[in-house]
């Protein structure tokens, strides 16, 4: 049934945003992934945003148990999962209620009307049925008895219980959306064939339901409000769809191979970082040693041990885990060993919002250790460039002999996007500082003149036996020293070593405007949101707004102050209460840093950013 109160005037647009919502057991993540992968294969640029509750199976039909997957597909460059929806697919009343606000007026809702039972309506706290009370009259509502139609489609398929029949209704919805957007079903049917290799009846069942949905939409001639057909103009190359966490894991694989070292991961499961562990444990064929330790501390401790023994060592975690690793990180820092700590940030403090995104561990990364203990801090900014920055983190830690914290966040870690595959040959060299031979006058804390990095003498090398530890050490011999002047010198040397990393990282280059009225500053995972907002506002005629997005936080790029001087106003946008703004204030006097902060466990919306920026330039 289609309500035709809204007149449909389909238009071809550059990009559309679709959101699939339902119970956390309804398979919305799978549905969304299939649609985005299929679109990417078709040649669209895509950006995705899975949003799910922290409960594995929240009570059915409840408002807090709604799981959603949003995908933005475009014939142009797409840098965020999008703000306002062109299509909402709601598998139950709770999903409709919690997501309707994001749908553009006049646009389409597909609902499974079978799920709008009295019980489900009550659970979603609807007093009257929204499908009957005219509350949706500003939208185009397509009511489909999806559960019944799925059952009908599966009549005669043997070996299916009621539960698996009902659960495959997500494929009916997917089939409908495939027809609406002119997508092929082949990728998903191939997926069934692989996934259910040993269960042919499930291949048959899922394919039947997918087809049923597809033909149902065809019969009704369900045309979307807006659609995009042409592939995006992307740089030539070979692409694949990659999730941020996978890209992070692969960046380290590449760095290990390039540096000629074995990769060691010491880790403890924590949302949303665990997928990096899941990925790396698979790669024993590259000699990866992925060690699931008894806790966060043992995770980093084992990595420190592996680093001492000559592996490229990393540990992965999220905010609460970084807090637990703090003391050990200080140890790695004073011992001047290479180590990468990946913090996939989530909402805090404490357990906070484990499945939601936030950028609130920045100050913890900068200062969350006892004593004067600076480390290199860098941040990835898109799902795909998690690869690049994981690689860069490994390169920096090995070449500068000091720990690196790599910040990503739940949003880019779980989001996926096309990645132009980088071959190992195209990556910069990594020179490790392992000492091969003993020489007369070698000491553990001899340093490279330019970088101040010490040499890496690993066990098994005759003549280089030495002891290091958490106690302050003599600046030459590395022996324990409590001498007052020596401690001050060592403290300053360790700080200077981080500062000199500035000479090895790129300068910050603003986008859209080199100088002008407003400089929008961001860092880390908000790049997509800020980029599309500043781009749009420029296209609307405000040519004097620039975007400076930081991937290097400690140290900051050399030319940062110079850049700040070129703009009349500066606004720092972050998903926290102003942590990067604080860092900029400490470093650069004489500037007013305006702030735009959002602390809702969600990424920035396009409109809220544009509105804010316009206020500042009009």
């Amino acid at each position: 049934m289609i309500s035709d109160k809204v007149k449909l005037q389909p238009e071809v647009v550059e990009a559309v945003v679709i959101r699939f919502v339902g119970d956390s057991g309804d398979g919305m993540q799978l549905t969304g992934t299939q649609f985005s992968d299929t679109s990417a294969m078709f040649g669209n640029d895509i950006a995705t945003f899975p949003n799910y509750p922290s409960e594995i199976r929240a009570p059915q039909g409840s408002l807090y148990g709604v799981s959603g997957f949003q995908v933005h597909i475009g014939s142009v460059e797409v840098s965020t999962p999008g703000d306002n929806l062109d299509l909402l697919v709601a598998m139950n009343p709770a999903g409709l209620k919690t997501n309707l606000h994001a749908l553009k007026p006049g646009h389409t809702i597909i609902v499974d009307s079978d799920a709008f039972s009295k019980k489900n309506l009550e659970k979603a706290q609807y007093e009257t049925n929204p499908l009957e009370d005219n509350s949706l009259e500003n939208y185009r509502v397509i009511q489909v008895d999806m559960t019944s139609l799925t059952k009908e489609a599966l009549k005669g398929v043997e070996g299916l219980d009621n539960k698996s029949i009902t659960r495959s209704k997500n494929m009916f919805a997917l089939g409908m959306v495939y027809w609406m957007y002119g997508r092929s079903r082949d990728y998903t049917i191939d997926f069934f064939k692989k996934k259910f290799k040993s269960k042919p009846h499930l291949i048959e069942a899922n394919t039947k339901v997918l087809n049923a949905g597809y033909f149902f939409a065809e019969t009704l001639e369900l045309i979307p409000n807006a659609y995009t057909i042409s592939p995006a103009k992307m740089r030539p190359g070979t692409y694949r769809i990659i999730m941020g966490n996978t890209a992070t894991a692969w960046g380290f694989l590449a760095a290990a191979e390039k540096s000629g070292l074995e990769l060691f991961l010491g880790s403890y499961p924590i949302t949303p970082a665990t997928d990096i562990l899941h990925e790396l444990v698979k790669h024993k064929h590259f000699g990866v040693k992925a060690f699931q330790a008894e806790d966060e501390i043992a995770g980093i401790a084992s990595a420190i041990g592996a680093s001492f023994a000559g592996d490229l060592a990393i540990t992965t975690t999220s905010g609460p885990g970084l807090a637990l690793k703090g003391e050990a990180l200080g140890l790695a820092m004073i011992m001047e060993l290479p180590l990468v700590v990946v913090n996939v940030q989530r909402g805090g403090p404490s357990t906070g919002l484990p499945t939601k995104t936030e950028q609130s561990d920045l100050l913890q990364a900068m200062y969350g250790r006892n004593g004067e203990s600076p480390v290199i801090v860098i941040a990835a900014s898109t799902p795909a460039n998690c690869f690049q920055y994981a690689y860069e983190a490994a390169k920096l830690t090995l070449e500068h002999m000091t720990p690196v914290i790599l910040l990503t966040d739940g949003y880019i870690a779980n989001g996926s996007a096309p990645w132009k595959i980088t071959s190992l040959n195209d990556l910069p060299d990594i020179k490790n500082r392992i000492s091969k031979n003993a020489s007369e006058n070698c000491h553990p804390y001899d340093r490279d003149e330019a970088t101040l990095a010490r040499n890496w003498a690993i066990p098994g090398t005759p003549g280089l036996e030495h002891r290091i530890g958490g106690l302050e050490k003599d600046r030459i011999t590395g022996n324990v020293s409590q001498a007052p002047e020596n401690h001050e010198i060592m403290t300053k040397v360790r700080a200077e070593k981080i500062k000199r990393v500035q000479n090895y990282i790129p300068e910050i280059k603003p986008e859209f405007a080199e100088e002008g009225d407003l400089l929008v500053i961001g860092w880390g995972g908000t790049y997509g949101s800020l980029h599309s907002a500043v781009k749009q506002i420029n296209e609307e005629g405000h040519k004097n707004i620039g975007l400076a997005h930081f991937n290097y936080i400690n140290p900051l790029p050399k030319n940062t102050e110079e850049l700040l001087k070129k703009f009349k106003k500066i606004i720092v946008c972050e998903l926290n209460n102003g942590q990067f703004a604080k860092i900029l204030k400490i470093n650069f006097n004489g500037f007013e840093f305006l702030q735009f902060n959002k602390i809702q466990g969600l990424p920035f919306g396009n409109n809220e950013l544009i509105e804010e920026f316009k206020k500042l330039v009009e």
Partner: protein
Amino acid sequence: MEAITEQKYTFKDFTSDQEVRWCPGCDDYVILRSMQKALPEMGVKREDVVFISGIGCSSRFPYYMNTYGMHTIHGRAPGIASGVKLANPNLSVWVMTGDGDSMAIGGNHFIHVLRRNIDLNIVLFNNEIYGLTKGQFSPTSLVGQKTKSSPYGNTQPPFIPGELALGAGARFFGRIGGNVPKEITQMMIDAHKFKGTSLIEVLQNCVIFNDGCFSNITDKDVKEDKQIFLEHGKPMIFGKNRDKGLVLNKLKLEVVTIGENGITQEDLLVHDAKEKDPTLHQMLVRLEYPVATGIIRSFDDVTFEEREDALTKQVKANSKFKKTDDLFFSGETYTVK
């Protein structure tokens, strides 16, 4: 002809140039010298030896050894040592720890390292007190013990390290007094030879804060009567006159005298350190009289590295991925022209 000269070390080769800073008369000196004497007997190259410690008096140990070493943070040495060993299984890795370091702040790592059975050696200096922080009760201090943090007597019942270790799955556990360098040296050599995690508990006197804590067990004039030194395959016999022994009476170990009530040496239990079932080993570590010393348990089992290594070989043999590029360009990719 190729000349192969095998380097024979002496204890001096393992002595670092650092001044040893323990209190005069501390058993730690005995343990240090025992180790420096044990290493030349192990047939291991000096550059392949790594000492890892946490925090506490015992944890200063690595500085005094002319090998690779790391003096790390409180309680975490087992985790760090695990990483060292997994990164390079060729190394002989030693964890030097105390009762507070291993069983209080590091308790979690202590039980898990024993459970996994990585081929590491742990030497536990048990002096039933915190030394470096100057005299607080530790997880092995006795109930009633007066310390700086228990002026009216300790109210926390202690761990028996061997009981905890066997409960956590330890495959090798030895206990030895801190005043018998020869036996300590031999036990270190045996621990080194053992494949898997080995744990040596040294009953170590702290001359400053808990002086005499083991004197009723380890002093020369009482040790033969108060200790039973266990050796694999030999009867459980002890006493100055070698006339006492252990038998099993229902579910308890009982001390008997040879020659009394018709008891002969044949009736005594024979020590089987290699038995998989730790029940009898558990009874032995809990025994208050006599106190069991020697290698109480030495059960040969598959190590963590062996399991990992077998899996890695299998995965490598069956994998189509030799280089990261093989992985990156595999599966669902598409080309934009």
